[in-house]
């Protein structure tokens, strides 16, 4: 047992001595949480709008004022022809133009919206907002969400009524960072020992190979828990993200996921023979699909079927899904049974493969 403890301590020292990496390890979640919580939003806000009109009458004037009064739009210019407006949009000085026809005052119609379609979602939302404001009964001075208009269906946004993006991203950040830290750092630390030649000594020592692996992994496990806790605390108290579900289950599912990431790191270290390769493997070949295909940024349902199959073997997909349910929706463990089962199966499989391929000899 004593060699084992001293092994773990040694590994912990490696981590603690590298101040810069430690700083990044804890700085990264904090900064990411702050960015996602406060800076990154899809809100419709400050849309730079150009008004195109040939004559200024009261009707148009009122419509423009209504637009300008809302916090969604900023009128930056009034021009005479649609061509001029398009020029402004092309130069990225405006996002949208509203062309009022000659008979707008008379018929209350003939409005054309020119919108920069580069970002389709935003374009859609801008037009929806504009239309709603333009057609609002005269006299009202702020945009009323369509849901409360008469005859319209009632809309209820479950779990996240203010549509805060943090709710969506906190679980995603957990999925990404835990994978990054566990897989990348364990793989590097093992490959580094191979590269420097210390692995030979460790292998020939009386300590069993399995013990070497476990000892290597424990400090990263602890580190992963520390980071997980940091994220959860920040999420709860800084970003006001609910922790609706049971904390115990959140930690339990996370533990399985961390073990999975650690086995993946071990597997990478078995494949890679240099630090450079281990880094590139984990930073690009592993991390890119995780970020892209796990549904953390882009919804899985919108992908072509083939890619949906691919995403089915990406572990963070299930973890993020499970965390979103447990943390935000506050469901019981029964509802994440499927995710839990898949994660457990994946962990066992990966663990088996990586232990099997661990080289107790040099090749």
């Amino acid at each position, binding site marked *: 047992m004593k060699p084992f403890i001293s092994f773990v301590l040694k590994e912990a020292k490696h981590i603690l001595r590298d101040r*810069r*990496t430690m700083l*990044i390890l804890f*700085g*990264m979640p904090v*900064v990411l949480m702050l*960015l996602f919580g*406060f*800076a*990154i*939003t*899809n809100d419709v*806000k*400050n849309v*730079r709008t150009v008004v195109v009109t040939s004559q200024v009458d009261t009707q148009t004037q009122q419509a423009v004022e209504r637009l300008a009064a809302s916090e969604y739009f900023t009128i930056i210019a009034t021009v005479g022809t649609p061509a001029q407006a398009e020029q402004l*949009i*092309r130069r990225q000085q405006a996002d949208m133009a509203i062309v009022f026809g000659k008979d707008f005052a008379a*018929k209350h119609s*003939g409005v*054309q*919206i*020119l*919108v920069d*379609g*580069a*970002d*389709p979602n*935003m*374009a859609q*939302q801008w037009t*929806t907002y504009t239309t709603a404001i333009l*057609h609002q009964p005269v006299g009202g001075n702020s945009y009323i969400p*369509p849901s409360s208009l008469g*005859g*319209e*269906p*009632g*809309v209820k*946004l*479950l*779990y*996240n009524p203010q*549509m805060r*993006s943090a*709710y*969506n991203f906190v679980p995603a950040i957990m999925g990404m960072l835990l994978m990054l830290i566990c897989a*990348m750092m364990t793989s590097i630390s093992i490959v*580094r020992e191979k590269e420097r030649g210390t692995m030979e000594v460790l292998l020939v020592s009386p300590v069993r190979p399995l013990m070497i692996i476990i000892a290597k992994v424990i400090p990263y496990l602890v580190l992963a828990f520390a980071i997980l806790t940091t994220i959860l605390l920040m999420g709860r108290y800084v970003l006001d993200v609910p922790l609706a579900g049971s904390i115990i289950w959140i930690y339990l599912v996370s533990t399985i996921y961390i073990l999975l990431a650690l086995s993946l790191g071990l597997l990478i270290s078995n494949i890679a023979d240099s*630090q*450079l390769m281990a*880094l*590139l493997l984990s*930073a690009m070949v592993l991390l890119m699909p995780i970020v892209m295909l796990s549904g953390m*940024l*882009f*919804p899985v349902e*919108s992908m*072509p079927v083939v890619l949906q199959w691919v995403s089915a073997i990406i572990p963070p997909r299930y973890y993020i*899904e499970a965390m979103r349910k447990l943390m935000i929706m506050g*469901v019981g463990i029964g509802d994440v049974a499927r995710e839990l089962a898949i994660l457990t199966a994946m962990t066992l499989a990966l663990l088996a493969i990586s232990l099997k391929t661990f080289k107790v000899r040099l090749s």
Partner: protein
Amino acid sequence: MLKYLLQKEFLQIRRNSFLPRLIIAFPIVMMCVMPWVMNQEVKNIRVACVDNDRSTISQQLVHRIEASNYFLSGGQKPSYQAALKEIESSRADIILVIPQHYSRDLTQGHHPRLLIAANAVNGTKGAMGSAYLRQIVAPSGAVEGTSTLTLYNPHQNYKVFMIPALFAILMMLMTGFLPALNIVGEKEAGTIEQINVTPVSKWSFILAKLIPYWLIALFLITVCLLLSWLVYGITCQGPLLLVYLLAMLLALFFSSLGLIISNYSDTMQQAIFVMWFFVVCMLLLSGLFTPTRSMPSWAYATTYVNPMHYFIDAIRTVFVRGGSFHSIAHQLLALALISSLMAVWAAGSYKKNG
């Protein structure tokens, strides 16, 4: 002198067992796969209907929803509670509740209220989903009289939006991370000491390290443009030369950043983590995924020094909107300025004499 150093860098990249394959395969795979993935379009939303009316009209309504290509049927549920259960076990994304006497009220001229409840954990998805559903169930005349012309991307194709973003991500990964590992790799191997006792000037050493990555960037952007044309039929609307110019400037920035981090790092692990940190922050604040103007003012302020923001803005203007040199002059200027500052810093931070 530079010539020989350059030859060495190229030979080293070529000799590496992994790098050449990565440099060639990675952009191709990414370009073929990612545009399909980087799609924030909201579709295939699963609707669970709770039909308390069970009339012909209500059934027609349900069929109308299922026929739309935004929605998939999540089945009919007897009660709101049962439907909620579906959402909790992620078998449905949105619930539509049709009240009792819906058809009767409708025929009598009342306005029966439907209820839409969307899972809004992903805010965009929840909002867009409920908006689409509302349009189907209540195609009211609100939109009458207003027509919308979507410029530059008439089919609202998400790939048009994301392909330029993908260029940026690929440039960042290939021309940023490889140099970040380069000098620190020579430090760990000990060969840097040998170079330091030669009369090599700082600038030739740094340039020899930078130039290969610019060529990689050239290759990369060419592959990207070709693939986006061949696979997706999306071509550049503005002058191609501008795209190349922008790519080169961004490559200059990222390769310099990589070398700076490499110069200050002691181990590869340190280098890659520091690089990750900067890159992720720059990426998130660049407007690549979300509009910068929606950010609070303190976050918006950072975009003035974020080269990624200038690049994204400019490349979308040229590639998607067909902008000219004039349209992106200030982004080019800012990018050139930041990049050259970084290059000077890269050379300055390389210490031959400790």
